[in-house]
């Protein structure tokens, strides 16, 4: 048993914190929310130079061969700072599936370019109802003898407006019945028939609607095997969710830290509000929630690195993350009083992202259900 970070992880953490505090302050976060691209290409290149994009890729593809736990530490820092941009979409949602399911050619073609910061990817999975269950996927890909022809509409595709490629999860098994027939395709964003439209969200995080009209892709652009997309989807749900939780966990730590500091400084009725028991206990509850979340995330990630089945633990982490983040932000704002409700205060940046984090990769109900099923209910 060992709760400690490795020396390398500590270094990564410190480097990430230093880099982000310089490169990505909250003024920039707010500017990026308002901007057309919602990301900063210069920062993106620097992140590539630091080796973050390829952190867990094998060395032959420009990576550093680090493991999931290292990436978890990095995501935590990115969440703590808030780091707008397509990192999560590119690395967690696309590069990892390519690492796991891509053939040699795909890995060589795409991973190296991602590691070098030369291509941005996103995952197109959710549709109109905004869910993640396999049975929700209607976007179709029919084989016309030469190509697969994709038709359908995807919602909430992160950073689609700046992406070079998509992974598109399609239904290829309508005839097979049930939800067995899913296939994941690699689709160039510039392909004919792809239409991208930004959805204006409070987080200003570049989510888009992407429509596919008779978009042709070749057989060689299938990720994994035809009709085996469920496996890909499951894997994305596992790894992606753990990494999303790490990001949320970091964000919660920042909210706690900010609020705790404020409670020590803010004087009302001639004493710091932090000396009032009602405020203290709220902060203590927040702290316990957040420390619990952090350990649940590490635990789930560790299980994955051990190759052990971790579905339940991952769902536990996500359900917890959804609740803890919302509560921390709401209590954080309330403890700050009016100042916490303003655009200029950093807290709002975290508040605006509550629902984005909550509904990405499964809402609380979905994960509670997975936990219940996992328990044999």
């Amino acid at each position: 048993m060992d709760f400690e970070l490795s020396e390398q992880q500590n270094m990564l953490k410190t480097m990430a914190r230093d880099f982000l505090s310089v490169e990505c302050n909250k003024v920039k976060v707010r500017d990026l929310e308002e901007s057309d691209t919602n990301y900063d290409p210069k920062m993106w290149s620097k992140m590539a130079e630091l080796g973050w994009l390829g952190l867990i890729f094998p060395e032959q593809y420009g990576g550093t061969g680090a493991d999931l736990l290292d990436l978890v530490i990095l995501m935590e820092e990115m969440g703590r700072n808030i780091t707008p941009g397509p990192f999560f979409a590119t690395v967690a949602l696309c590069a990892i599936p390519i690492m796991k399911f891509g053939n040699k050619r795909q890995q060589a073609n795409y991973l190296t370019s991602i590691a070098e910061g030369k291509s941005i990817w996103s995952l197109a999975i959710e549709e109109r109802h905004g869910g993640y269950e396999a049975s929700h996927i209607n976007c179709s890909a029919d084989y016309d003898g030469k190509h697969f022809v994709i038709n359908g509409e995807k919602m909430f595709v992160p950073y689609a407006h700046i992406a070079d490629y998509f992974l598109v999860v399609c239904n290829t098994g309508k005839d097979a019945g049930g939800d067995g027939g899913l296939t994941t395709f690699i689709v160039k964003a510039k392909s004919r028939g792809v239409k991208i439209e930004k959805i204006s969200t409070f987080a200003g995080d570049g989510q888009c609607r992407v429509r596919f009209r008779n978009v042709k892709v070749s057989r060689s652009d299938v990720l994994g095997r035809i009709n085996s997309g469920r496996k890909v989807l499951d894997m994305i749900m596992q790894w992606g969710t753990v990494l999303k939780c790490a990001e949320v966990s970091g964000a919660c730590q920042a909210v706690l830290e900010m609020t705790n500091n404020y409670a020590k400084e803010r004087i009302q009725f001639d004493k710091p509000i932090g000396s009032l028991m009602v405020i203290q206990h709220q902060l203590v509850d927040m702290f316990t929630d957040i420390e619990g979340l952090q350990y649940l995330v590490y635990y789930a990630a560790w299980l994955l690195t051990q190759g052990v089945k971790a579905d339940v633990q991952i769902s536990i982490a996500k359900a917890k993350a959804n609740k803890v983040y919302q509560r921390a932000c709401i209590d954080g704002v309330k403890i700050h009083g009016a100042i916490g409700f303003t655009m200029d205060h950093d807290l709002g940046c975290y508040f605006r992202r509550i629902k984005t984090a909550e509904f990405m990769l499964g809402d609380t109900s979905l994960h509670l259900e997975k936990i219940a099923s996992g328990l044999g209910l």
Partner: protein
Amino acid sequence: MDFKFGEKEERLREEIRQFAGVELAGRNTIAGMEEESNDEDWEFAMSMSRKLARKGWLTMAWPKEYGGQGASYFEQHVYADEASYWGIPGTSMGVSGIGWVGLSLMLFGSDEQKKKYIPLIASGDPDGVWCTAYSEPNAGSDFANIQTRAVKSGDEYILNGQKIWTSCAHRARWCWMAVRTDASVKKKQHGISLMIVDMKSPGIIIKPILNYAGVHIFNEFFLDNVRVPVTNLVGTENRGWYHLMQSLAFERHSMAPQFFGSARRILEFIVKYARETTYNGKTLASDPIVRNKIAERAIELDTLKLFGYEITWKMSRGVIPVYEAARNKAYCDFFMQRLATTGTEIIGAYSQIDRASRWPRIMGLITRLYMMFPGLSIAAGTDEIQKNIIGQFKLGLPRAY
């Protein structure tokens, strides 16, 4: 025991319903939430204020001699509830004038002040829009701590200092302001006075503060040698704190019926949405978890309804509510948070979408409420402050801070 309204109130309810149907023409907002933010919404709200004034509803609570209708507390209650249900904007004209300035002036204003300001408010014109400036950077919950100085010089006071969080200052013609007229006192509550400040006075600088959803509700308010005629002092010099306490009581009683009206409508929308939206081939309404959550909110809604009724009934009997108003405010805050959270859980990923986008669900109302409720719970006294009041004044507990 009897929990129904009289025929007169039911008729009023019906009239408001008809008015809303004609006048709102499909506009959907949550009443009083952010109408002061952009020009278009504000213009519309003001146009409604004038119509409400003509109907006699805007200031129905006031005595006839002041342009009111001398409406009973029950009529006021139904009006607050029903107008909020439909989200009629302009009912409060930036809150202060209708909420407490008019009533306070009737109580302790000079004859000259009554004559000048009260009809302006009752007319529903932009010249009757007020803001209220109590809070300062170091005087929030502890607002007896105000430092903004008013020094008498001849027949004027000269004001210097800074106010903050002043809602609607960017729309207001007048400001209801608490200032320090005596800094030598031992007890902070002494030495405070209330004044009417003309927002066109030289030396006033208003700077917008956007809330974290980008909405312009409140402002920073700087005063640099602002001259205020001594005739603008309201009530007695240095007794402002006590006037203020009375003034605050006016602020609180309509909160429950108002939010009840909004919440009643939002809950109806949620029910409709759950019945009409299918997920995995089944309606959301058939999901036991969704059913439970909505049912919980219905319990809270009814609780709030009765808390609101109770205050109205007590006031009709001449009781001045103290802990009741605090209880209702705290309960509204609690319920708003739950309702907004349940709403977002039911509309799912769409709850991140701005109403300006092409895809809002339930007209963006849930999202608005979600972005606003923490602010609303802080405004007019935080939960903790309300609970302190209840603990001390109802439960008789020793003061905890």
